[in-house]
């Protein structure tokens, strides 16, 4: 029953509840698909035994009538979430064979609701990258290829493994994290749906930290509704994360399919960057037309500080990273390199354990925080960050959500990074990073193919805590776009 892997999460959960198939059957189908797709390098650790054990337990719960909302549904976990007794690496050599003795809050809630873990998914090292190429396990291959081409493309990053696994039907859904676009950009590159909720909606406890004031967990899934189902399980107040918001979790799935008539949708002028490919502009225009047809009112808005978002991000994120990553000192966990003095051991461990991009960001962070530069860089960035957030607050006085493209291009070739300077690579996140700085919920969904046959995404940005509105608007766009194309399964062994 290999068809079981092509189900949506919602259809799978319904089929399991109605006992049309068992969790063991659908989990086995996914384990086989996962093992046959190693050419994609999406999973860095397969946990088939754990998956089958969890599936059997789920089947028992279904039989006894106590099924949770995700009961028996196999999913993948980004290898940034700590999983008890299961190797967690952040795809960095510095963590070695680290096996957490605790479980992250988000994954704890997913297991509470009955989900089954298939394995750990590849990502850019410490989630620092936009192409999955900084992973210590090597890059993920995008399941999508340009028409008539055998060239391997990036799935985006940092949640590249999560997005590729969902696109290739290697799981029903996956967790991701998003610090500057790491859920939304890979979702756009792989024809999947991803949402970064409001900062504080999901607990960060047990997620390997990158930039604490920006990091947020969220799901990547096949449909808008599947994302809503997963986000509902992942969200909620957690006393173990002091930035976790003590607010109730709405019934996100109930927002999908609601009428969007009369909603005001803002189109920010500044996202129309000069040099933006005509196809991206055309897709954006199409999205506007779809929402007009659905009864939305389209309102031009201005977010004047947009161009400063990326440079602000590249001060704030590396500064916080340089502080967060100070814990990797070779003393308490992870690898330890030899050295003559204690300082030698620190320096050798960190030089050996961290990859090139992570080292670069730590150095930038240490520089902007160092004596004499703090005010000029870090404090200045924190002030510009408020300007950016204020732009959004002003726009949201007149609109309910914003519509933009997710990325300035479709997926690019693996290896293109080697010929790009870091800043060019950073520009990939130009449309996504603003929502992280302002802490706003933002979502990407597939809206069409470009002329090479590669998926393109549209992004919706909402008011704080109004993920529900995003799910309604995304539902309307999904219906209009009717995106059903799947990549050809060239990777199957």
């Amino acid at each position, binding site marked *: 029953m290999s068809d079981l892997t092509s189900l949506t999460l919602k259809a799978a959960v319904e089929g399991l509840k109605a006992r049309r198939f068992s969790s063991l059957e659908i989990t086995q189908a996914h384990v086989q698909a996962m093992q046959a797709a190693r050419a994609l390098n999406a999973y860095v650790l397969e946990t088939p035994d754990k998956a089958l054990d969890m599936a059997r337990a789920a089947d028992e719960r279904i039989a006894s009538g106590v099924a949770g909302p995700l009961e028996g549904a196999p999913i993948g976990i980004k290898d940034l979430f700590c999983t008890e007794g299961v190797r967690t690496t952040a795809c960095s050599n510095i963590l070695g064979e680290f*096996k957490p*003795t605790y479980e992250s809050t988000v994954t704890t809630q997913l297991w509470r609701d009955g989900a089954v873990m298939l394995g750990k998914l590849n990502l850019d090292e410490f989630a620092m990258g936009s192409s999955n190429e900084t992973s210590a396990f090597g890059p993920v291959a995008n399941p999508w290829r340009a028409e008539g081409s055998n060239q391997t493309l990036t799935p985006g990053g940092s949640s590249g493994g999560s997005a590729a696994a969902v696109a290739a039907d290697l799981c029903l859904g996956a967790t991701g994290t998003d610090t500057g676009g790491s859920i939304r950009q890979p979702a756009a590159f792989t024809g999947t749906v991803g949402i970064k909720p409001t*900062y504080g909606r999901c607990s960060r406890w047990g997620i390997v930290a990158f930039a604490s*004031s*920006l990091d947020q967990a969220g799901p990547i899934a096949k449909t808008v509704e599947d994302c809503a189902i997963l986000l509902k399980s992942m969200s909620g107040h957690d*006393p173990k994360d*002091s*930035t976790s918001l*003590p607010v109730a979790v709405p019934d996100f799935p109930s927002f999908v399919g609601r009428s969007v008539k009369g909603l005001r949708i803002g189109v920010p002028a500044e996202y129309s960057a000069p040099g933006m490919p005509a196809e991206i502009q055309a897709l954006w225009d199409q999205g506007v037309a779809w929402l007009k047809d659905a009864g939305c009112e389209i309102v031009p808005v201005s977010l004047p*500080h947009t*161009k*400063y978002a990326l*440079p*602000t991000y*590249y*001060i704030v994120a590396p500064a916080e990273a*340089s502080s967060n990553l*100070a814990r990797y000192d*070779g*003393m*308490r*966990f*992870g690898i*330890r390199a030899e050295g003559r*003095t*204690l300082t030698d*051991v620190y*320096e*050798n461990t*960190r*030089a050996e354990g*961290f990859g090139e991009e992570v*080292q*670069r960001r*730590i*150095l*930038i962070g*240490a*520089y*902007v925080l*160092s004596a004499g530069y703090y005010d000029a*860089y870090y404090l*200045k*960035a*924190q*002030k*510009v*960050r*408020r*300007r950016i*957030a204020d732009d959004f607050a002003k726009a949201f006085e007149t609109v309910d959500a914003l519509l933009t493209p997710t990325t300035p291009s479709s997926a690019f070739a693996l290896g293109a990074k080697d010929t790009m*300077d*870091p*800043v060019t690579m950073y520009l990939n996140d130009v449309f996504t990073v603003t929502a*992280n*700085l*302002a*802490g*706003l919920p933002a979502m990407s969904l597939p809206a069409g193919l470009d002329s090479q046959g590669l998926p393109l995404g549209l992004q919706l940005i909402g008011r*704080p805590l109004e993920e529900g509105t995003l799910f309604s608007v995304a539902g309307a766009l999904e219906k209009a776009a009717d995106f059903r194309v799947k990549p050809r399964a060239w990777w199957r062994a």
Partner: protein
Amino acid sequence: MAIDAATVRKVARLARIRAPEARLEPLARELSVIIDWIEQLGEVDVEGVEPMTSAVQVKLPLREDVVTEGGDPAKVLANAPLAKDNFFVVPKVVE
């Protein structure tokens, strides 16, 4: 160029990352590209703007000052590169 080799040496030292001499110049060039690009923030008027430190304004919660969990050295040491008698073993710190 915003950053020279000497600055890279100093920052790498602060960050406790060994940077071989041969890497200092190339790193200085790479980091300078990034810092030069960041400099455009100088254009933004931030007069009177309060720095934003958190995306959502909430009062940081306080909890009772009591022990919540602990007393499990085996768990704490489970991932240690080197441990002995319920302690981490680290390189000699005091001469």
